[in-house]
């Protein structure tokens, strides 16, 4: 029980920080509205069942900061590949449909992996089930990059001891 209360508080603090960054008007009235809004949102969120460890995975934050630059660079590289495929006259695409292993332990980890696959153009996740992900790959390069399992390992590391 205290664990949940702690989580609610952390979520409220995160939302309050978001409010303060967004708002830009630091007067008493608006800040009061902010506190009331955060309380209302957390209350409704708890009622809807969206405020829990899966919805706000705070423990991933430190590793996320290291993961984000890596995935951004992957996205840039993948974009370059797909852009080349689009503009070359012969359209050198080689579609594959392949089921790969998702070695993450939790649903959250597998979702992060599936989304990482989708957000890098050239690969898109079609289906997530039974610790595997069905992936559609556009080019030979994206297919081979997927099979190295590097991203799978990175996301498993990001997820940590889950």
């Amino acid at each position: 029980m205290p664990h949940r209360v702690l989580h609610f508080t952390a979520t409220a603090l995160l939302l309050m920080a978001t409010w303060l960054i967004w708002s830009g008007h630091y007067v008493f009235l608006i800040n009061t509205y902010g506190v009331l809004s955060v309380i209302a949102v957390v209350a409704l969120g708890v009622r809807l069942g969206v405020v829990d460890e899966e919805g706000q995975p705070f423990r991933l934050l430190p590793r996320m900061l290291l993961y984000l630059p890596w995935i951004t660079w992957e996205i840039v590289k993948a974009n370059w590949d797909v852009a080349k495929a689009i503009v070359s006259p012969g359209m050198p695409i080689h579609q594959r449909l392949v089921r790969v292993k998702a070695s993450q332990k939790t649903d959250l980890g597998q979702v992060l992996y599936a989304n990482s696959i989708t957000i890098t153009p050239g690969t898109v996740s079609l289906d997530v089930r039974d610790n595997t992900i069905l992936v559609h790959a556009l080019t030979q390069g994206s297919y081979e990059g997927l099979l190295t399992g590097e991203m799978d390992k990175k996301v498993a590391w990001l997820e940590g001891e889950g």
Partner: protein
Amino acid sequence: MALALDILSWIFLLSGATFAIIAGIGVLRFPDVYTRSHAAGLGDTLATLLVILGLLLQSPDWMVAVKLIMVLAFVWFTSPISGHALVKAAYAHGVKIDCEEEDAVSH
């Protein structure tokens, strides 16, 4: 200094614009919905990133910068979700894929 920033901003905006048009061409040119979704991802990710970066360098104050980053974060967060939902729905609906399914789990 200001000139260097302007030039950098120019480069970002122009390359972002180029990638957006390439994405548009891809959406038009690719043969089926699965391949087109890759092209759509191009417009959602790199084109958005570059355009937003170009605007960031021109933002008059930090409020505007924060909001630009929020727009980028939101688009990057939701783009894979709608992309996944789209191809999943198309696949479940029986839209044909031009290849066989293979299994890479065992090795």
